[in-house]
């Protein structure tokens, strides 16, 4: 087998060799599968063995009691019971195969730039199917409808629904519905009807095919497939409008397909269709689609509501979302409603609320799981398509197949052009000819059609195999021919591509601004248009729904602020990940600092220097201490707990973010008061961004603020706690050291505090730590200074004790300086010495 593999893999460049190797590994795995299948096909042997052994034992037991233990077989130290694990094992093998293939294709960038991944996967599926067949085994019915509709499809659709770009989707909903409903109907009847006509022509040997099966076939084949569209469109990076048009159509035409399918299936047995049935069909369509959306929305709201209360069990948060969505799908399928629409609705409804409720980590988990599942499902589906092609019984009829392919193409083109002609009369942004072409050409068919065809009853539809063959051919044609050529065509036609740039804050501001502006203009014109209703809905959402579904205060947060916070948060994370603990980039990493844009506000009243400025080396040292402290607290792990993750100060819940921010603002006020009291000029009260930016642009800024000379604070901060002799000692030591040391300590505290605060605005957890360590540092600084001046304050141990004491004795100050977050206590316990 391996020889074949080597022959298969084209030799030459290194990457191809690599690929060959990978294929080899793969096929070894496959051999495993085949063998297992072999074993599986003869399960009776092992079963017999079992029963035989059992009988024997039974006989032995009944015949002579005494020798029972002796006649027993030796205890099997190692036994092989493959049958026991067969199903999960084979599933795992398939998944492994899919993942390895996905991995393999990404190692060969050149290949995947020419051929879409979906095509490659189908080819792999064909190979695998061929191998299984060569091994003389029965090819398993991999694309069995239950497996497909209940396991493989939901993850892909949920992923699509959850990440559905709501805005363009809603803006183009009319066009999408037009394509999805009218377009699909047109396709179904056009293809079905003309196929029937062709079948009636003498000499095609197809005269036994009746009208209804033809229409049924037409309705199966006419629906654009979301899986195929996603797979191909993701690679060509088409602009948002076209993407949402084709993709939205593929999602929403499910209801039409379901209804047509059931309708024709029902009546192809019974024969006649009366006008009454048509009316019923229309009603059924409404129920199927709207019912599906309703079911999905209900589950979505439930999920959002549940997530309101999960703040104490963060670990299972993501699970709720998945389970609710799956339930939505299953519930919809139970009533033969459109499961796809239910999933889409569920994902889209729950997203904004759930995102506000669950922790940042959980959200990342949700995103990753969705992507992981959907990509594995997608891979499996394409591989299975290949396998099923090899497996299935085929009835090839040239006429039928070629007519199908041609009719599909023709009807799609006519449908799109005709519908666009109507739609363009209503659209503000018209669809150009290029757009129409891409929409028509992007109508790929896929595995849903195949599975629906597979569902057909053999007895009712004697031509089922022929249908299946035609469906597979059509899928192959669209996926291979159209899928492979669409990319060059997009380039050739210079269709506008997607802009990859991430959204900037200016764009967000202006998007919001535009929304309000347009709503306002519509109101002035007196038209109740699109924007007007959107605004109404938004306000309703904000006023009532968000209040119910979002925990805490976050529901009040306007979108712009949320966006801003998200941006800040992202940067904070990036900052932490990049390892920089001290240099704080402003909200926008740039060469330009806040000073440049700030209107000429004069610096604070100038006073001469009271404190020695730090040398560069000293600063470095401080940074080092800060950093190591940071790392230390980070590395300290809590004991293992199954229900919570080890708390990581850097990724404290996103939900706490706002609360902390508010606290920080209060703190800032308090701080300015306090610094007034200490007569150390605090930072100029500015917006947080401004401060951060200034700090970023000039880390020395804080050290440069000069304190007035007699303003050097004697530390009369009412520390308010009972003063132990030790602390008095400390104070004495400090005062012995003179104004400088003390002042320095305070100063440092102030800057540390300032630093922490500014940091806090970006990454709360970080800020907190920094604030605390900053304070610790300032004390430590005092000690250092003593040493510098040769005072040799005390042995290290004592110093530490004193500092602990210091930490204990001014909890009020500590509270003020560092954000009193939940994890504060253990920091206080910790010695701040590195």
């Amino acid at each position, binding site marked *: 087998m391996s020889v074949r593999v080597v022959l298969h893999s084209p030799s030459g460049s290194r990457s191809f060799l690599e690929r060959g190797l990978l294929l080899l590994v793969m096929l070894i795995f496959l051999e495993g599968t085949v063998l297992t299948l072999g074993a599986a096909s003869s399960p009776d042997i092992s079963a017999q063995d079992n029963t035989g052994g059992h009988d024997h034992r039974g006989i032995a037991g009944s015949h002579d009691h005494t020798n029972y233990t002796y006649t027993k077989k030796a205890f099997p130290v190692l036994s092989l019971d493959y049958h026991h694990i067969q199903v999960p094992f084979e599933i795992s093998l398939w998944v492994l195969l899919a993942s390895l293939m996905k991995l393999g294709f990404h190692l060969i960038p050149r290949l995947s730039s020419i051929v879409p991944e979906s095509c490659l996967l189908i080819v792999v599926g064909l190979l695998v199917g061929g191998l299984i067949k060569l091994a003389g085994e029965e090819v398993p019915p991999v694309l069995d409808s239950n497996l497909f509709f209940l396991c493989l499809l939901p993850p892909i659709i949920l992923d699509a629904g959850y990440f559905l770009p709501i805005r363009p989707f809603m803006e183009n909903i009319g066009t999408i519905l037009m394509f999805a409903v009218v377009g699909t109907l047109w396709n179904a009847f056009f293809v079905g009807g003309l196929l029937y006509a062709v079948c009636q022509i003498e000499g095609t040997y197809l005269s036994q095919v009746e009208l209804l099966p033809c229409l049924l076939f037409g309705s199966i084949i006419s629906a654009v497939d979301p899986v195929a569209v996603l797979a191909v469109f993701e690679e060509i990076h088409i602009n948002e409008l076209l993407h949402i048009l084709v993709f939205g159509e593929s999602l929403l035409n499910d209801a039409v397909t379901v209804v047509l399918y059931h309708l024709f299936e029902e009546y192809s047995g019974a024969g006649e269709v009366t006008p009454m049935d048509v009316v019923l069909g229309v009603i059924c369509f409404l129920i199927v689609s709207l019912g599906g959306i309703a079911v999905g929305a209900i589950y979505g709201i439930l999920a959002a509501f549940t997530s309101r209360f999960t703040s104490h069990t963060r670990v299972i948060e993501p699970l709720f979302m998945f389970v609710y969505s799956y339930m939505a799908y299953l519930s919809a399928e139970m009533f033969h409603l459109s499961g796809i629409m239910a999933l889409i609705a569920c994902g889209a409804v729950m997203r904004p609320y759930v995102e506000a409720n669950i922790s940042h980590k959980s959200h990342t988990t949700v995103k990753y799981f969705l992507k992981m599942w959907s990509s594995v499902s997608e891979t499996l589906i394409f591989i299975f398509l290949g396998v099923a092609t090899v497996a299935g019984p085929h009835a090839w009829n040239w006429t039928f197949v070629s007519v199908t392919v041609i009719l599909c193409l023709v009807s799609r083109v006519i449908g799109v052009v005709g519908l666009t002609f109507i739609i363009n009369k209503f659209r503000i942004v018209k669809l150009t000819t290029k757009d129409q072409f891409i929409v028509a050409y992007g109508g790929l068919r896929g595995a849903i059609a195949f599975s629906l065809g597979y569902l057909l009853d053999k007895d009712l539809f004697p031509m089922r195999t022929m249908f299946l063959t035609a469906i597979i051919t059509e899928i192959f044609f669209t996926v291979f021919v159209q899928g492979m050529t669409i990319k060059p065509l997009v380039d050739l036609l210079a269709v506008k591509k997607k802009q990859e740039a991430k959204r900037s804050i200016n764009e967000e501001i202006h998007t919001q601004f535009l929304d309000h502006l347009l709503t306002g203009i519509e109101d002035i014109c007196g038209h109740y248009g699109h924007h007007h209703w959107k605004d109404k809905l938004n306000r309703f959402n904000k006023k009532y729904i968000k209040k119910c579904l979002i925990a805490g205060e976050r529901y009040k947060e306007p979108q712009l602020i949320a966006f801003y916070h998200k941006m800040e948060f992202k940067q904070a994370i990036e900052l932490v990940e990049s390892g920089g603990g001290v240099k704080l980039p402003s909200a926008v990493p740039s060469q330009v*600092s806040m000073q440049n844009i700030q209107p000429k506000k004069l610096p604070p009243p100038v006073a001469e220097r009271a404190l020695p400025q730090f040398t560069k080396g000293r600063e470095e040292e401080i940074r080092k201490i800060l950093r190591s402290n940071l790392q230390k607290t980070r590395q300290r792990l809590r004991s293992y707990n199954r229900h919570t993750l080890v708390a990581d100060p850097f990724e404290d819940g996103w939900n706490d973010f706002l609360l902390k921010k508010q606290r920080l603002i209060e703190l800032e006020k308090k701080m300015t008061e306090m610094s007034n009291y200490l007569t150390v000029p605090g930072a100029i009260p500015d917006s947080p961004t401004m401060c951060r930016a200034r700090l970023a642009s000039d880390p020395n800024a804080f050290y440069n603020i000069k304190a007035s000379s007699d303003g050097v604070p004697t530390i009369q901060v009412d520390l308010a706690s009972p003063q132990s002799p030790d602390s008095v000692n400390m104070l004495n030591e400090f005062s012995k050291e003179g104004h400088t040391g003390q002042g320095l300590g305070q100063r440092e505290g102030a800057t540390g505090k300032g630093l922490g605060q500014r940091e806090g605005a970006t990454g709360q957890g970080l800020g907190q730590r920094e604030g605390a360590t900053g304070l610790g540092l300032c004390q430590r600084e005092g000690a250092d200074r003593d040493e510098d001046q040769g005072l040799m304050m005390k042995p290290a141990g004592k110093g530490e004790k004193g500092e602990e004491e210091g930490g204990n004795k001014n909890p009020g100050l500590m509270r003020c300086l560092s954000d009193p977050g939940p994890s504060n206590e253990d920091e206080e316990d910790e010695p701040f010495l590195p």
Partner: protein
Amino acid sequence: MGALQSLPDEPEYRDLSEKTGFSFEQIGILHKRFKQLSHNEDTLRRDDLNTIPDLSCNPIRTQIIEAFFDKRNFHQNGEGTVQEISFEEFLVVMSHFRPPALDMTEEQREIIRREKLRFLFNMHDTDNDGTITLEEYRHVVEELLSRSGALGKETAKGIADAAMLEVASISMGHMEPDEFYEGITFEHFLKILKDIEIETRMNIRFLNMDTTNLCK
């Protein structure tokens, strides 16, 4: 087409239609609305717009209303504000929101784009000095967030600062600490919003049907 019958005189409408690109029906409807808002006067005042109930919840209401009384938006190279506007001026302001035609050349597209952005820019640049200063920008964001209570004020400042910093870094590249970025000029404004397809977004649908009696 009930609106058509109430047209005062055709030639005047033809003139307006050429000037603004609206169809006769649309002009008729807008005229009716204008009369409704101005209580059958020939001119429209700020108060007339201020009393539109639907507009009362709009956070940027004052800016929208100001835009109607801003001479810069009348295509006449004027400056400053006026106290009342005639129907023609009303139409000209409205015409900034007209959807573009189906087939445009690149140049036409660019012209429309600039016009629409200029309108936005003028809304921000209240003192008409050609730049949006930090103060002005802060004001814009504050207005945007004015419906969100006390929380908004502080954050608005931060957001405006961050946005301004972004503009400065995009348009200026590197700046020395002692340099000063005056504000967003129109060129920079074009640059930062180049990814927003303003020509396809800053449009509303001007109906050919009369719906004014439905509205408050």
